[in-house]
């Protein structure tokens, strides 16, 4: 059965508009980063890599990027065990007060980011750890934790309790069962969840804005601060770093678990 022409036209026109809107900023930022002029004009005048040279030699930017990487790494390292254990527990066991627990674990989604950020800012301030890098990583982990738990529970359909019983029957003790049977079953969820956590923390802006100061500024905050003063092509070149990171994560996602995992119905 082929779709009627009018349906195809409507769908394709709307999808075309969405595609245009989705990709326009990426394309324009890419284009602007290669300009040889000092300001961003359209069409760009000339091709050069001068802005990439400029950002590569900028110590402040390199520091901000390294800090962003550190934050993302801390966030992911914490999220993997915490989210995986919680996800398996939610998917495998009948838990008392499960509904309330789910609502509680969804709090990072339901509390607005500005609220979470300011709350953590006050809390960290009182603990005297504001102005360090690792609290930002923890904060990013907290606010995005539902993504990790969701990813693990989504792949928990592969979790067959009979397999664990079979392992036990063959003499495997609990920890060996966990590492050889339970964990491999949810591995796709763990991988997609941790990649998601990494890239979200790398891009995290508002909470970082609230938790950083001049010495601990992360790259998205740095870009935001520079946007407000003046628009120069070096910002476009920095932005391309983010585009490259996003592309790497997408390639990894596709290689390791397949992007189709996000289309599955639960």
């Amino acid at each position, binding site marked *: 059965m082929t779709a009627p022409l009018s349906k195809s036209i409507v769908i394709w026109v709307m*999808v075309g508009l969405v595609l245009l809107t989705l990709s326009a900023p990426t394309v324009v930022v890419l284009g602007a980063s290669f300009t040889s002029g000092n300001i961003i004009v359209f069409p760009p005048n000339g091709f050069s890599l001068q802005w990439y040279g400029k950002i590569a030699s900028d110590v402040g930017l390199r520091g901000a990027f390294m800090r962003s990487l550190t934050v993302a790494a801390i966030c992911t390292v914490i999220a993997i065990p915490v989210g995986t254990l919680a996800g398996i527990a939610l998917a495998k066991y009948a838990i008392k007060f499960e509904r309330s627990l789910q609502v509680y674990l969804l709090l990072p989604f339901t509390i607005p980011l500005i609220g979470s950020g300011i709350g953590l800012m006050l809390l960290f301030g009182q603990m005297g750890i504001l102005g360090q890098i690792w609290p930002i990583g923890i904060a990013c982990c907290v606010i995005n934790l539902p993504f990790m738990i*969701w990813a693990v529970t989504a792949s928990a359909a592969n979790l067959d309790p009979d397999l664990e019983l079979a392992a036990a029957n063959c003499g495997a003790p609990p920890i060996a069962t966990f590492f050889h049977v339970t964990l491999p079953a949810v591995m796709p969820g763990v991988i997609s969840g941790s990649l998601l956590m990494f890239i979200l923390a790398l891009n995290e802006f508002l909470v970082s804005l609230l938790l950083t100061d001049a010495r601990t500024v992360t790259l998205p905050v740095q870009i935001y601060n520079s946007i407000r003063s003046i628009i120069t092509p070096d910002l476009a070149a920095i932005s391309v770093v983010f585009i490259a990171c996003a592309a790497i994560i997408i390639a990894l996602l596709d290689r390791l678990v397949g992007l189709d995992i996000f289309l599955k119905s639960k």
Partner: protein
Amino acid sequence: MRSYRTAYPFRWRVMDTLEMLARVLWPNRFSGAVPYLMLAPAVLLVLLLVIGMAQIADSSLHVLDRSTFLPSADFTLANYQTALRQPLYWMIIWRSLLGAAVVTLLSLIFAFPYAYLMVRTPSALLRKFLLIALFLPFFIGQVVRAYGWLIILGNQGVMNEMLGWVGIEPQRLLFNYPAVLFGLVQYMLPFAVLMLAPAITAIPEEIESAASSLGANWWRTFTHVILPMSKPGLVGAGLVVLTLSLTDFAMPAVLGGGSQDFIANAIYDQFFRTSDQGMGAALTLFLVGIGSLVVGVIFTVFGAGTLAMGRGKK
């Protein structure tokens, strides 16, 4: 001795030690507590947020206590009254709510055909292309995307240049309400599509064929079959988009240029420009309240249980 080593490798020894430790520390009769033990780290992490919210509540009371020296119970009310008596805040709240509603509607309308095509297309290549086109902006972050729009919509930007080619005077496209809403829609589209796609996957294709073989044209199939059946996805996507755009900071700040503040921007200004922690904290709790209210209303109108969208099982 050498044969002992190969017969009993290091890894086995580590595992056996671990198993033994586990047996000593956590005997079998505790096994009922295992799931709670597994959940404990996550619960503790989220507890940070709860303590943070308590800190915000405390902070709002604290400032008022110092200024009036009266029992704190009255101050909470006074604090919110002061905040709500200012017409400026009402305007900002109205702007945020209206904006969030418009953005949600537009995002759902445009995300739906995208998700539908992505799920239904027989071509694996097209599906992958659509997925990549979706994930790339999703993974790039709000600030970079807002920066891209600054380049496109600026006074000497791409858009005005192209308008110039067809003889239209340069327009002021930035720093107004539509620009903020447009930026928000672009930011929300990936969220909406990703929430909608699983719901559409769950609709069997045969049902559409059945509808059309019974004589329904595609529009009637869409309105009577596909749309009602994808309700869980629509509610889930709507909720996510509504709450995220209601509380957004970056788009109003960058594309609104300070003239189109949403609630989050007002809160930020209270903390970092005016340094009135109490007022900022009150506004924050107020935003949390509005958000919960909106979510609650959607739940009662469209039915609960769809929050489980974000979670594998009920």
